[in-house]
């Protein structure tokens, strides 16, 4: 699997390269600024990209903007955005095109390399991964939108884990129930949110989006 890495801190960039190589990824490019990132994304067409939100030359949300620009040209280009902080605003922007294949995680999550690699693979496979911090902020909100109030507490729990990018089997493990029960829950969630039966991955993305917009 070919990866493009955009990270301006040398130590972190090298750490990521080493980590990914150890897990059998191929590093297509490792860049340290937004301009190089865009050309790397468009020319190398990686299977997945890891992008830091804050990059030179502006040191603002250069990475995020570049990622969004690249996805406008190559819809669904899988990108995992890393940041020192997470914002719902940015999460929405990433998910807005409903194409899937996006992730948004705190940089700390790299510490747990197994989960990080799993998240990277989920994104590469077209899934959606949101940081638990974004999710927990959402949980703090009292939802007033009709569809969300229809969900049972258990279903909301499943939806939260879904937003974190976990597969049905991982959710089942986490909640100590069978995978079958989870798939029942998720079908119920899709129906309640009015999502037509289609490709399961896409429905998951849409469910998470509905959740974000609640």
């Amino acid at each position, binding site marked *: 699997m070919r990866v493009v890495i955009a990270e301006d801190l040398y130590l972190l960039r090298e750490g990521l390269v080493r980590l990914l190589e150890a897990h059998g990824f191929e590093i297509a490019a490792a860049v340290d600024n937004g301009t190089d990132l865009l050309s790397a994304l468009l020319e190398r067409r990686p299977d997945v990209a890891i992008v830091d*939100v*804050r990059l030179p030359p502006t040191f*603002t*949300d250069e990475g*995020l*903007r570049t990622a*969004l620009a690249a996805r406008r040209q190559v819809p669904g280009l899988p990108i995992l955005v890393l940041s*020192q*902080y997470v*914002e*719902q*605003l*940015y999460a*929405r*922007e990433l998910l807005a095109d409903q194409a899937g294949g996006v992730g948004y995680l*705190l*940089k*700390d999550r790299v*510490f747990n390399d197994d989960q990080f690699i799993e998240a990277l693979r989920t994104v590469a496979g077209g899934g959606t991964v949101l940081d638990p911090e974004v999710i927990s*902020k959402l949980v*703090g*909100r*009292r939802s*007033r939108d009709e569809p969300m109030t229809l969900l049972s507490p258990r279903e909301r729990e499943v939806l939260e884990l879904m937003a974190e990018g976990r597969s049905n089997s991982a959710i089942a493990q986490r909640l100590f129930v069978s995978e079958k029960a989870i798939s029942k829950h998720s079908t119920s969630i899709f129906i309640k949110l009015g999502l037509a039966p289609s490709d399961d991955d896409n429905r998951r993305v849409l469910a998470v989006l509905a959740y974000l917009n609640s």
Partner: protein
Amino acid sequence: MLQLVLVVAYFAGCVALALRREKAQGRMPSTLLGRARAVGWGILLLPLALMIGGLFSPASGPIVFLLLLAGMLAVLWPAVAAKVTPLALIGLGLYGLVIIRALARGDYVPVYGLVSPSQGWARTYAVLSQMWAFLAFGLWLAWRMMNRQSRVAQALLWEKQKGQGEGRRPRWGLLLLPVVVMTIELLGLSSWFGQDWWRAGATVTAMLLALVLISLVPAVAADLALAVLIGLGLYGVALAAMWPTHIQLPSVYTDQVRYGTVWVVDRPTAVLAGVQGLALLASGMWLAPRALDARTRALFWPAPDAELAGRVQQLTQTRAHAVDTAAAELRRVERDLHDGAQARLVALGMNLRAAERLITSSPQAALALVGEAIQTSSTALTELRDLVRGIYPPVLADRGLPDAVRALALDTPLHTEVDIDVAGRVDAPVESACYFAVAEALANAVKHSEARHVQVRMQHARGMLRIEVSDDGVGGADPLRGSGLRGLERRLGTFDGILAVSSPLGGPTMIVIEVPCALSSQKTSTC
């Protein structure tokens, strides 16, 4: 001669006794200067007693009595003696006036200070210079010893502090009292010791009028005092310049002019009057810009207009607030770093060190420690993240105010509508102040309002950024109660911004922030 020896011996004895007393109390400086200081100013009462005694008569009775009294005070109650000394000096100085008057009349004159009775204008000079020396020394001592904290001193010298930032201002109106005394003297109306009832009545009435003015309209009293002071000074200078002719004031004295401390009878006394006039004039000129009422001052010194002055005061205040806020903020950051991330990094280091020691002997325990270390580092990162968010929120840095407010609305656990019409960015400090004001308003809405909906409207028109945060809650928000909104109001004040709260009981609550600011052309991208 014998008397002189006796007096000197008595003085020496008093000094020695005073020093012994100091020594007995364990305070004995080794240097000569220190010893002189230890005896205190009270010892001056002895020569003063001698001089005051000399004023009465050559008879030794009062002198001996006064000397004994002074010695007793200086040795036994040095603190009391020190307080009496300036009063005695001032009294002696003032009595010089009486002597000068007597000299001019050709009356009998007792010993004054170091001068023996005699006639002639040279004596007048000698008495006059001593008089000024006594007065100046006495006033200086009194000033030195005055307890600045005492209420009397404050009432005399300074107005009570009015609110913050105004500082202390002397009560210049009090100046009217000495000025009135001088005028009365000049007009020959004074009758301090005499039995001339109508003159005494006029004196007392003038003083009472002055007191009424001072207490009722201090500003007018100060203006009047200065005007008269300068007038008196000019008159003195004119006397000297025009001698032997002179301007006849409606004075009691028809043939002579008394000016200040002298009768103007010949050229030297006229010069003396001129010198005194110059002194009065100079002090009047020096005091004028300080003591005149602000409105009067504006007539003479084309002052910056009131608006500008108000602006300067406001800027001074808001600058002080800004500096305070910045300092408090730095302290908070320091404390947070110290108690948070810094402490966690120490713990992290210790854990890793312990793990290093255990790794061969007890890998399981080492593993647990490493796990703990990872947890600690993650907590430290979270704390740092929260800290950074409190200093300068990342979205604000990345995107500017509109998107930062949108992000705030998203994080608010209420149904929050955002309506933003701002195309461009405002200066970073203004953005930051507005951001935290909106954040506080939203947090208040969540905590206190019981609202279901919150609306944030932001627009920039005619050089004014206006933000409205309104909710449909129960209202009753008191901006004076919470320190949060007031702090933000001050922070906005630095940019001439305002924060207004309308929150009647029963709601709704509306908070309006207005800051004059320009937009830079840089567009905010919301993708």
